[in-house]
């Protein structure tokens, strides 16, 4: 026998690339809007070149061999950039699987006369390509997850603004739900702003919180306690009728916290506490 699969493939590199490109270009999932054909050819040529360069008779059977490190790296890069460009998983799958097909077709034409050897070669190449495909998918999903994580961070950041509504009065509208991580962000930014603006009153508005369960209540109570430790008073506003009923049934004791139905009434309370008086200016009659 003595035929070297790796050498066999390396010799036919050009033909394999052509086959691969033909399969890719004829596939219906070709995305010319995301990547031009020239770019695709360049990417494919580079990948095939790297793969065949490291491929030897020895490491062909060992898919986890460290020799494949550069191939995995390159593939991860391709997969990641495809995820960000908006390729679907199927399109990325087609990219790898069409290469597998091209490699197998090449082997089929070269070792026609020895079926046993051909079968062995096909199994080994298949195993290698499948393993590469797993890498591609793993990084593809990681790429997508990165996008999601970035968005989560952005949402967390923009959703907890501390607003100075008046000299010495801060308002903090809470939207969504209060979990442990969120409370941490809320508390941190609130306490920091209390120091920075030397405010004495903070209004926590929970109009945007869908449900107040015991965990949310516990976080609210903790935030209020921390605010008080800083020497500021905390008012919770935006308690809707259905929330009030639920809180009572649940048995949460919020009686030693100042609570108001609306942000307006909380602000009014804050004015009273600061001994401020807001009144309409009587228009002075001009004329005569």
């Amino acid at each position, binding site marked *: 026998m003595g035929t070297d699969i790796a050498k066999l493939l390396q010799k036919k590199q050009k033909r394999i690339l052509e086959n691969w490109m033909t399969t890719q270009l004829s596939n219906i999932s070709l995305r010319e809007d995301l990547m031009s054909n020239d770019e695709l050819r360049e990417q494919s040529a580079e990948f095939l070149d790297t793969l065949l360069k490291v491929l030897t008779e020895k490491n062909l059977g060992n898919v986890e061999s460290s020799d494949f490190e550069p191939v995995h790296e390159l593939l991860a890069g391709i997969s990641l950039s495809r995820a960000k460009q908006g390729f679907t998983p199927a399109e990325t799958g087609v990219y790898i699987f069409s290469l597998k097909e091209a490699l197998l077709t090449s082997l089929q034409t070269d070792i026609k006369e020895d079926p046993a050897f051909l079968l062995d070669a096909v199994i080994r190449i298949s195993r290698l390509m499948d393993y590469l495909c797993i890498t591609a998918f793993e990084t593809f999903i990681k790429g997508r997850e990165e996008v999601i994580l970035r968005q989560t961070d952005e949402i967390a950041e923009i959703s907890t603004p501390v607003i100075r509504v008046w000299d010495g009065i801060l308002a903090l509208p809470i939207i969504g*739900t209060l979990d442990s991580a969120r409370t941490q962000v809320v508390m941190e930014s609130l306490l920091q702003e209390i120091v920075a603006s030397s405010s004495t009153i903070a209004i926590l508005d929970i109009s945007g919180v869908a449900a107040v369960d015991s965990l949310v209540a516990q976080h609210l109570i903790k935030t209020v306690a921390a605010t008080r430790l800083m020497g500021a008073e905390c008012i919770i506003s935006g308690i809707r009728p*259905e929330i009030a009923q639920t809180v009572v*049934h*649940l048995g949460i004791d919020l009686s030693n916290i100042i609570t108001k139905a609306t942000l307006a009434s909380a602000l009014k309370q804050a004015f009273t506490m600061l001994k401020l008086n807001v009144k309409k200016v009587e228009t002075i009659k001009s004329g005569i």
Partner: protein
Amino acid sequence: MKIVLNKDRMLIEREQDVILFRNRVKEYAVKIGMSLVNQTKLITAASELVRNMLKYANGGMVLIEVLSQGRDSGIRLVFTDKGPGIKDIALAMKDGYSTGKSLGIGLPGTKRLVNEFDIKSTVGEGTTVSIIKWKNG
């Protein structure tokens, strides 16, 4: 007799699932025309139990069912986990008792929020909590 009209299953594995799950429950509650107060009570109860499940059992499975009984319709939620279980259910149902560092009103509070409440637990095997909230309950 309670007739099950619709069944839906949901896996709870992370804290992020709580919001998704709550929204799903809300969808069903809105669909059967539950009032806003009852909706909020159901969602709060659901959120309470699902958080317990995450905290003590690292997640589990929730079955959401739309029920019909006579002229009334309602929603049943069955929370199943494979956690450590509850040793003394009577004690866990008491206000102010908590093995974690929470307020200790989760289970008794939930019972007050819903119409029917059932809890079964075997130490070492897991806990199943089933609640029903009727549309006009």
